[in-house]
Each structure stands twice: as C-alpha cells, then as structure tokens.
C-alpha cells in the first residue's frame, strides 16, 4: 500500500446504547474496509447506561469522516466524533513485570523507573510490577529501559481520550430523548458551522 502523507492518528469517540452485538457491528465497519483498529476501549461514559467507545486508527480525514458516518448510522449509536491527537487529552496505561532482585541490587534501575514516572503496584520476593501512564512514546521508552534488566512481561491498555472542545453529552442526550430534537442534534455534526461546508 502506498504511503499517504496525510494519514495520521485519529481518535474516534462513539456514544452508544449498551447492547449485545454492537461491538461487532462497529468492528466490521473497519474490517470490511481492511482497516486495522490500533486501539479500542469500551467504557461507561459520563451518563449512566450510555457507553463510550474510543477507537484509534491511522487514516486520512476523508476516510475517517466516512467511517464516523457509518458508525453513527448504526441504530444503537447516538453520536460519533473524530479528533486528531491535538484535539484530545489521551492516556494509555502500561504494566511491566521485572525480577525484584535486579531492582533491589541495581540502584540505577530504581532511578530510571522514577525518571519515567513509574510506580510500583506489587512488590514480591520474585518479581515486581510497575505501572506507568502516558503517551505511547513514554510507555514505549520504559520498555527499552527495562529490557536489559530482564523484563518478564509487558502489557499496555487501550487508549482513552477526552475531547478538549467537548461540553459532554448530558445536554445532547436530553435532546436525543425528545421526540423532535432541536437542529443541533437532528442536523449532523459533519456540518462545519464556521464555514457552512458539508464535510462528511
């Protein structure tokens, strides 16, 4: 596949009903187009009973906007937003298991862990589990640091992201629940209100 320079990471945020099978319905929108989901997190949202999907993919904006439209078209999806990394506050959490004796014996390791903002979650005789939270580069950096000291296990969570410009979903949901919602909800978000261009 040829490299497209305008491809970048996008954070797709979907507010949905809590429904069995919806994860599959959303996942196949990507797999049908042979697009790899790089990170997927499903969690509660600020509203009880409403779920929030955070999906990360690397694509062009044209593709992402079409995918967002396809997701929002699903009956049980309330609303979909997509944002570049600059538009969100995002975090990923990572866990690292290392032999305790190495940590205990080598002061340099302890220093490195501190420098990387790692925190011990469990300390046992045979192994210790550290945790860091941050951007991909940060959690990656600590792998490289710990590798020479016998990193036993590593795992990283999916990305969670908060949209900087969002006012939350509470007022929106009330609109959705109305039989005849106002224009903001009934009209699509794809309409860029500033220059009145339909960008979907």
């Amino acid at each position, binding site marked *: 596949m040829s490299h497209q320079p305008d491809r970048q990471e996008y954070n797709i945020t979907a507010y*949905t*009903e809590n429904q*069995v*099978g919806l994860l*599959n*319905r959303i996942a*196949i929108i990507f797999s*049908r187009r042979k697009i790899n989901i790089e990170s997927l997190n499903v969690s509660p949202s600020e509203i009880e009973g409403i779920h929030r999907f955070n999906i990360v993919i690397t694509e062009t904006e044209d593709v992402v906007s*079409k995918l967002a*439209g*396809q997701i929002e*078209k699903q*009956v*049980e*999806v*309330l609303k979909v937003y997509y944002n570049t990394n600059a538009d969100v506050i995002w975090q990923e959490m990572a866990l690292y298991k290392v032999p305790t004796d190495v940590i205990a014996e080598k002061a340099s390791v302890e220093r490195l862990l501190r420098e990387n903002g790692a925190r011990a979650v469990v300390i046992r005789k045979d192994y210790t589990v550290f945790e860091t939270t941050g951007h991909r580069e940060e959690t990656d950096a600590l792998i490289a640091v710990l590798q020479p000291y016998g990193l036993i296990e590593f795992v990283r969570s999916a990305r969670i992201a908060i949209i900087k410009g969002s006012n939350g979903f509470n007022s929106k*949901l009330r609109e*959705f*629940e109305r*039989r005849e*919602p106002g*224009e903001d*909800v*009934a*009209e*699509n978000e*794809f309409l860029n209100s500033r220059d*009145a261009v*339909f960008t*979907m």
Partner: protein
Amino acid sequence: MLNNEPTTIAEPEALAAAAPSDMEEALAPNATGAVAVLNILLAEGVDTIFGYPGGAIIPIYDALYDFKDQLNHVLVRHEQGGIHAAQGYARASGRVGVVFATSGPGATNLVTGLADAQIDSTPLVCITGQVFAHLLGTDAFQETDIINITTPVTKWNYQVTKAEEIPEALAKAFYIARSGRPGPVLIDITKNAQLQPFHFAPYKPCTHIRSYRPKPIVRTEYLQQAAALINQAQRPFVLWGQGVILGAAEQEFKAFIEKSGIPAAWTILGAGALPTNHPLNVGMLGMHGNYGPNVLTNECDVLIAIGMRFDDRVTGRLDKYARQAQIIHLDIDPTEIGKNVTTAVPVWGDCKETLPLLTALVEAKSHSEWHQRFQGYMAEEVDAVIKDELFPTGEELTMGEVLQQLNELTQGEAVIVTDVGQHQMVACRYARFNHSRSNITSGGLGTMGFALPAAIGAKFGAAERPVVAIIGDGGIQMTIQELGTIMQTGVDVKIIILNNRFLGMVRQWQELFHTRRYSFVDIASPDYVTVASGYHIAGQRVEAREDLAYGLRQMLEHPGSFLLEVMVAKENNIFPMVPQGCSVAEIRLR
C-alpha cells in the same frame, strides 16, 4: 434440509411452572411468545408471510395454525425463495415483507436475500427460530450464530431469549425496517421464548428510538443554495433513483421536473417513478444505460441527484465523472452524501419533504436547446442499437423484440420482475412503465435467482396487477424450485425465459475483454416447458418470430401462471456499454 426435532422438548407447562411465583394477578400470563409474535404481525398490518417451517420455529408455526384465516402464509420451497418473495412483495406494495425461517440452515439460507435487501434498501422483517437459550453456544442441532452472520447484511438485528422481550423487539423491528432509509431486520427467537407463556400487554408500535434518527430536519439554507444553482444553470440534469419511490415522492418529483423543465434520467431501481413516456424522461443511466444520459453527464453544469447513491455501475470511472458539474445531492441517508462524488450542495432529508420546498424556489424553465442534445443522442442510439434490437431483420430472435412485443400487449401496465444479466439490462432499457413500483430487480447485489421468487411475492403484494417475470436461462435454474410454490398457491405469475443457451453477460465480457475465451458459460437447460408441466404450470416454447406475439398473448391471456420460453440469439451483446474503467463519456455504441 433436516427438520429433526432436538431430543429435549420443553413443555410449555414446565416453563410456566418455572415462572416467578410472586407474579401479580394482573400480569398473569395470557399468551405464549409464539402467539404474541402473530398478534404483533396482525397489529403491524401484516397480511402475508413467506416462510418455511423447521424444528426451532415449530412453536410459531403451531400458533399459526390458529391464525390461518388472518395471515396468509406462503410455503416456499427454499428459504432464499422465501426472502426474495418477501422482497418482491415489499417492492411491489411498499409494505414490509415478512419471512419465517428456522434456525441453522434455514437462517443461513436467508443471507443472500438479506444482503440483497440491505443494498437495495428493501424493508423486511425476518423472524428466525433459534435453539433453546440454554443451548446457545453448545453447537446444538441446527444452531448457527445467525445474529453475527447477518450483522453486516441487516439494518438491525436482535436475539430474543425471553418471551417478554418479543413485543419491544418486534415493534422496533418494524419501525426500523420501514423508517428512514428502509432495510432488512432480523429477529432471532429462541425456542423457549416462543413456548414461554407471559403477560402480553396491549401492543404499542414503536415510534421513537433515542439513538436513531430516521428523518433529518430539512435545512432551508441548502434548499436556497440548491435553487440558486439550478436557476442559474444552463445545462442542468437530474438523476433519480429508488429514493423517489421509497419516499413515495413520485408526484412531488414530477412537479419538480415539470416546473424546472430539467431532463431527468434514472437508475435501474428508480425506473418507473416517472412514466417511461414522460417527455422529460431521457432514459437510463449507467453501464448499459442510454447514450445521451451517459455522455451528457459529463457536459451538464449542474447535476441534481435525487435518492440515488452514485453506484459504480452508474458512474463508471469516478475521477472522470461529471468533473465539470456542481452536484446537488438529495438523500435521506447522510452517509451517501459525499461518499463517492464531491457534493456542492447537500440536501439531507426525505425527498417527499425537500422536493416541494425546492420546487417552490426554482424558476419555471424549458431548457429546450439542452433537451435537443438528448434527443440528438437518442436518435443516434436508435439508429445504431435500438432499431436492430427492437425490430431485427436477422433470422434470430432478439431479447429486445420480446420486450417490444410485450410492451404492445401490456401497454406498460405490468409489474416487470427481472433477474440478473443481459435480459435484465434489456428489460430495464426497453420495458415500458406507466406506474411506480413496476420494475422489480436485484440492483445492487446482482442476485441471480431473484426473479422467480420475487415475482411470486410481487403478485401477492400487487394482486390487481399483471406480474411478468423475465429471467435468463442461468438465473431460472438457481431458484427453479419455486415453481412448486406457484403450483401450490396458484399465484398468477407469467414467466418469460429468455434462453440464449449461455450465461450471456459473462459471455459478453469474455468476448469483449477476454479474447472470446468462453470459460464455463455455455449452460445447458432442461426442457422448461416439460418441467413446468410437471408442476402443472402451462407453458409454451417460441423459436420463431412469427410465433412470438401469439405466444406472449397466450401467456398473458392464460388464466393462471404460464411459462413462456423464448429461444433468442446465442451471442447478442448488450449495447451501449460503458466498459469497466472508462468514463461515462466513453460509452460505446458497438
């Protein structure tokens, strides 16, 4: 298909006993899940069901035994036939088609029809039986994960495992299937839910789902922008699709066209929304569409697309498609706007609402010079293609002359149901349609085997109209078993088999693009008239031109179904043609 019962059969009494003992008297069970299903169908106005029984749906069929006077169940010969029949019913009537099938193979046999209905936006509610809830995931007899199998090919689906879920699930199913951009819905009901007695409260249809907005608010600024573009256009051109029919906006569309004076061309699913002989109807779009509409797509200055989705068979090569034109797109589905072509003005909405608003804003015009361009191209096409197709002088019969003769006899009043391939293109190009909902064909999916069952369904959906199925010798053999459904129900369907002893469309491509390497396209046929007679269906074979008119008349005048096999030229090609990878302006006349 096996219909063996699972070895464990739960008795309704046993399930009733398991119900919570503290149930209020007012909420005492008054129906089983199965009985509720049938009452809901009646409440939703269903009169016809196409189906096939089997182990996991026996409780619903058992209940159906008592509803025989109110619900007409059509026993098909294969579930695929059942769902295509429901599609034909829905397309002819504008109502939701309903299908029953059992679990496992019964359910998987629906998949092609679901995909067809999804891509052609046909409203269906399919109810499948499923194994007992406690057996889910155990590889039980006739268990398949039909919810996950059908997720990509349904607008919505849901698995019911308790009887109490049935009213809400079915209410949502009908609402979702018929509202917004219509589509197929599948409800999978486990056998215990069908058997379970529960309190069935008076049924309330669904009218609102908070996460689902079938109808957008119409924004007037876009209508004003659209009208401004249209009013200043020198060469405006309208493309319409099935959205006009699905929105029941035929009159609104006609009013718009007649006031604005804009020439209008149709996609194959849009055919009939404006009568064929309307002076502003300039013909068919796409790969085998008319010459003028294709060439002039690349010369118009404003392109107004109404309820169509710029399918690749319509646009040809996309980067050379109408680049000079500003495109106004009216559609109810926002994901269609800007999907394939760049839109200058998006008019998101139900065209039944948006068209009258637009009509009010556009100036009355005639665009007569622009019209003459279409007429000029049509004259060229008549000369190069149509004349020889409809009035051939060679010895062999053409598909076109069959359509021409049929038009003479039906005068455009018939519902024409077609399969997929050369005969489909000929029928769409040449059949006359006076009314909307007259052209029923598998458009998006291109499903061979669609026509025979769809015609059966169409006749149930439009009993007062003559229904003529036109099918190739390939497609008929894919669902020929549905002759049994015709036999048993006595439904009056006229069947024309255009037999060229080839899988003609593939053969045409092999001839034109693969140096005539005819790889597995010469398909043998049984003696169709004999096969029909085995099903007690009258039939006739026509091999010579002098017998054609008589054969067609005999078919149409026959009381009841009739199969007419017409032996047509083996190696005729469909032209004009936009070869794959070419722009619409590169359409070939020969």
